């Protein structure tokens, strides 16, 4: 009855899992579950993706059925030498950093304030969340309404504070305005996620810090902030993916102006495609944008990975 541990694992090793050949018990089913969704997704994404690549090397004719005339690298050369385009990239980066940065700072700030509120936190949070469910087109139009120099509420407020310029009329203020509209809509998302992060920091860790003698700011700086940094990173990832993509607000407010001050790459792309019908060039811009957003997402995902957060 007594088996003593004398068997060499190497000798006893069976011929190898492959030879026995029953499937891993939890393999096929997952595959089957994923199939319909992934096939549809592939159809909706891979086909357009290859079409985009083909278009970026062509001039696209529309009338009488779509045809592609190969033009080699012309679109790409133009993409790389187009000075206006580079300005747009620069603006995009500034816009991206400003919106996402402000949203993070304000979102964290609001979350911290909310976290200290004990009673009524849920109602406050609910009200603060409202903007993120609004359609961006409506946000843009509403922004235009509020900043209209004739009857806009905010314009009126600014005027009574002594500001004489016109909000959407000069490059800097228009840029600031569209940034703020985006910030208005999406700060709540960051606040929501951050608040959840804050609530997930165990009470005992805060208590440990208190017992260790840390004053409030140190507790935040050294305990709370690092503890929620992962969550913040996730928030950042989610937000940046859309920040690069969405352009509805600018489209309906300034449409890129004045003086191209708000002409970020998505606007230029849209304009190239649907105002100038230069689909070839648009495809090149689109691919570059895709590469850019994937680069950003990869960066964040890698950061998350090194913290062991992705599954």
């Amino acid at each position, binding site marked *: 009855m007594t088996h003593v541990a004398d068997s060499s694992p190497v000798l006893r090793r069976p011929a190898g899992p492959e030879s026995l050949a029953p499937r891993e018990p939890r393999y096929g089913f997952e595959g089957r579950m994923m199939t319909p969704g992934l096939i549809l997704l592939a159809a909706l994404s891979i086909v357009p993706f290859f079409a985009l690549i083909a278009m970026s090397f062509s001039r696209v004719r529309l009338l009488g059925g779509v045809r592609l005339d190969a033009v080699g690298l012309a679109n790409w050369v133009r993409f790389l030498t187009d000075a206006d385009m580079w300005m747009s990239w620069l603006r995009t980066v500034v816009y991206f950093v400003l919106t996402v940065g402000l949203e993070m700072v304000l979102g964290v700030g609001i979350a911290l304030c909310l976290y200290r509120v004990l009673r009524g936190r849920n109602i406050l949070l609910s009200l603060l969340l409202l903007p993120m469910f609004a359609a961006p087109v409506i946000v843009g139009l509403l922004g235009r309404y509020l900043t209209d120099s004739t009857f806009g509420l905010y314009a009126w407020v600014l005027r009574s504070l002594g500001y004489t310029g016109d909000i959407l009329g000069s490059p800097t203020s228009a840029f600031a305005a569209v940034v703020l509209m985006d910030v208005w809509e999406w700060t709540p998302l960051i606040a929501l996620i951050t608040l959840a992060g804050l609530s997930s920091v165990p009470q*005992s860790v805060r208590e*440990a810090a208190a*017992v260790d*003698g*840390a004053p409030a700011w140190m507790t935040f700086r050294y305990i709370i902030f690092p503890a929620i940094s992962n969550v913040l990173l996730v928030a950042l990832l989610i937000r940046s993916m859309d920040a690069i993509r969405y352009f509805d607000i600018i489209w309906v407010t300034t449409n890129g102006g004045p003086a191209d001050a708000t002409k970020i790459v998505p606007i230029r792309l849209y304009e190239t495609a649907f105002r100038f019908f230069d689909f070839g060039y648009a495809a090149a811009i689109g691919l570059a944008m895709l590469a850019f957003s994937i680069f950003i997402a990869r960066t964040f995902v890698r950061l998350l990975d090194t913290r062991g957060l992705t599954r």
Partner: protein
Amino acid sequence: MAKVLYEEATRVYPGTERPAVDALDLDISDGEFLVLVGPSGCGKSTSLRMLAGLERVDGGRITIGERDVTHLPPRDRDIAMVFQNYALYPHMSVADNMGFALRVMKAPKQERDRRVRDAARLLDLEEYLDRRPKELSGGQRQRVAMGRAIVREPQVFLMDEPLSNLDAKLRVQTRTQIAALQRRLGVTTVYVTHDQVEAMTMGDRVAVLKDGLLQQVDTPLRLYQHPANVFVAGFIGSPSMNLAEFRVEGEEAVLGGTRIRLSRETLEALRKEGGDRLVLGFRPEAVDVIAETDADAEHRTFPVTVTVVEELGSDAFLYGQYADAAHPALLDQTVIARVDPNAPPAKGDRVRLRIAQGKERLFSAVTGRRLPP
């Protein structure tokens, strides 16, 4: 190092009626290791957290050393605390975790490093100083939590069930280490647990709480041998003391055929109370198994049907049912007895148990308090 004094310390959680801790009076001397035990919800953690400043004191005072700390925030109390789940800072290395309190008090870097290293050496953590808590095993985490407390060199250590997240084997090891460490450092320590063995082995004194009320404070052995009331008697010791209600007939306590002679002091005390009943307790190791036929009519014995025999190798425990069908009073209660592991009775056997002379403990059936023997 300082003495700690609870004076009528009370805590009533908002929204509740009954105090979670009710006028606690406790005097812990300098360098003492005091263990707080009690069933779940009895207010152990609350008492500890009041001392730490994590819970408001709603009445009474708490002093550490000579200082009244009742309303001071935690950081001004010079205490260190080890939490049940360790509450390590997840994003800091072990070294940073241990050094955080020193950094807060702006100790110079070398000083800090030195103290962290010393503590790490003491706790055998030197090779893990650069790891994150989640890369450590449970036992190592526990040691880091200890380390975080001892680098502080505080006036008081507070520990709230610091071992309960460890598995049985590790718990045994670690409790010895902690006790040894505390003796070595000589820091006044308040230690919360609900583990029997920890309570018995670690503390200089043990305080037993129930429903927020202090039941008894004494050395472990005295608690075991002279519990102040039925609650303490049943709570301390594993397996628990056997308890049963006896009638008082003349000078004897009687249950079925079992009769036990009572001393004059006992009878005196009973008379004062006016009760004709008492609770009699005896520990599992305080009974002997005698052959059924052997001494049928003898005093201090009773018949038991064996329902389960647990053989642990080193020991064997008999779980039995009082077998006197004529007196069903005891029928529901299981009697536990420690028996010779080399010759345990078998399941289903009928045996006679005898309570060893002088090993019974008597309690008032009315107040639950111990009666003089």
